[in-house]
C-alpha cells in the first residue's frame, strides 16, 4: 500500500484509505483510480501527484528560454506594474493613490496586445514549471532571498493548477468543466473548479471570502 502526494496542495492519497468523498473504496491502488479522479482538496488531476518517499528529483540545471513567447508585451509589463502598485497603495489604506495607479493601469491595459491561445499558454506554463521556476528557486536559495522564495513557492503551485486546468480543457474540452463553478483566490491566484469554493485556499490558506467567483457568460 502506497501514498501519493498532491504537489499543489499537499493532500495525500493513501491506497489503504481510498477516497470516501468520491466513492473510492479502501484498498484501491493508485493505478486503478479512474483518470477523471481529481484531488478532493484542490481539484488537481492524477498527473500532479508524486509517490510519497520517492527520491526528490535532483533539479537538473534547466535550459532557460531567453525569450518567452513572440511578443515583448511592453505595455502589459507596465500594466502589471501599475496594478501591483495600485494594490499596494490600497493595502496602505491610501485610496487616492490607488485610484491614480488604477488610471495608469487602464491606459497600459488598453495598449496590451492580445496574442496566443490556450495551447500557447499551456506550453509556456509547462516551461515555467520545468525550467524557469527551477532556475529562480536555485538562485533565490543561493542568495537566501526569503521573500522571493515565498513568492516562488506560491507562484509555482498556482502555475501547476493553471497548467492542469489547461491540460484538462485541451484534452476534454467543455465537458471537463461544464458542471463546475470557477473561483479565483484573490490573495495567491489559485483557481478552484467545483461546486463551492473551499473553506480555506489549498495553497495560501486564506478563508473562503477571499475567493472571487468567475461566472459563465458574464
Amino acid at each position, binding site marked *: 500500500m502506497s501514498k501519493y502526494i498532491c504537489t499543489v496542495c499537499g493532500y495525500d492519497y493513501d491506497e489503504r484509505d481510498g477516497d470516501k468523498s468520491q466513492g473510492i473504496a479502501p484498498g484501491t491502488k493508485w493505478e486503478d483510480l479512474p483518470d477523471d479522479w481529481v484531488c478532493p482538496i484542490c481539484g488537481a488531476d492524477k498527473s500532479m501527484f508524486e509517490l510519497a518517499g520517492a527520491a526528490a528529483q535532483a533539479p537538473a540545471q534547466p535550459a*532557460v528560454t531567453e525569450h*518567452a*513567447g*513572440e*511578443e515583448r*508585451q511592453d505595455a*502589459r*509589463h*507596465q500594466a*502589471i*506594474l501599475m*496594478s*501591483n502598485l495600485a494594490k499596494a497603495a490600497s493595502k*496602505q*489604506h491610501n485610496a487616492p*493613490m490607488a485610484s*491614480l*495607479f488604477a*488610471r*495608469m493601469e487602464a*491606459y497600459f491595459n488598453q*495598449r*496590451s496586445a*492580445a*496574442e496566443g*491561445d*490556450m495551447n*500557447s*499558454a499551456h506550453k*509556456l*506554463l509547462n516551461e515555467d514549471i520545468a525550467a*524557469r521556476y527551477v*532556475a*529562480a528557486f536555485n*538562485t*533565490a536559495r*543561493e*542568495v537566501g*532571498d526569503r521573500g*522571493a522564495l515565498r*513568492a516562488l513557492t*506560491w*507562484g509555482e503551485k*498556482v*502555475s501547476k493548477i*493553471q497548467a492542469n*486546468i*489547461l491540460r484538462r*480543457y485541451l484534452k476534454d474540452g467543455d465537458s471537463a*468543466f461544464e458542471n463546475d463553478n*470557477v473561483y*479565483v483566490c*484573490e490573495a*495567491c*491566484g489559485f*483557481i478552484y473548479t467545483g461546486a463551492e469554493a473551499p473553506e480555506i485556499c489549498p495553497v495560501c490558506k486564506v478563508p473562503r*471570502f477571499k475567493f472571487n467567483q*468567475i461566472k*459563465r*457568460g458574464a
Partner: protein
Amino acid sequence: MKAVRNIRLCTKDCLCLFVCPTGATNTDDGQIDASKCLDACRACVDACPSGAISKVPFNFPPQQPKQEAVCAALRALLASKANQEAAMDAVIGSPASPVEAQLARALKESIRIVAEDMLRESGYMLPQSEQARAALRGMLESEQDADFPKDAAEELLRMLES
C-alpha cells in the same frame, strides 16, 4: 504611524472608542481620523478584540536591496506570465464557447496575481520605493499617446516624493 481599521474584521465592539485618548476613532465613516491619531500610541490596536486595527507608517523605509540575479530570474518568469496573459486576452476576444471564455477570464485573473507577485519581489513591493518612482519618471519621459494620464503620473510622483 497611523491607525487604520479593516472594516471587514470589525465587529463593532467599539473598544477603540473607549480607549482612544484623542477621539480619532470617533468617526462614522468606518475609518480612523489620521490627523488626530498619535504617532506612538497603539491603545486601540491592543484593545480591539477582533484584531481589526493595525498601524501603518506615515513614511516607509526604503525597500531592502535585491540581488540582480534574483531579479533577473523573476523577470524571466514575468515575461512568460505576460505572454500567458496576452494569450488569455486573445481567447477572451474570440472564445470557442462560454466555458472557454469563463476559464480564460479566471486564468487571466490568476496569471495577473502571480505576475504582480514576481514584481513585488524584484523591487516593486512599495510605491515609495526608488524603483517604482523611477518607473513613473520613465513613463513621463518616454513618448506616450494623447490619452496618457500625465496628470496622474505627476500627481503620484508628488505624493511619493513628498
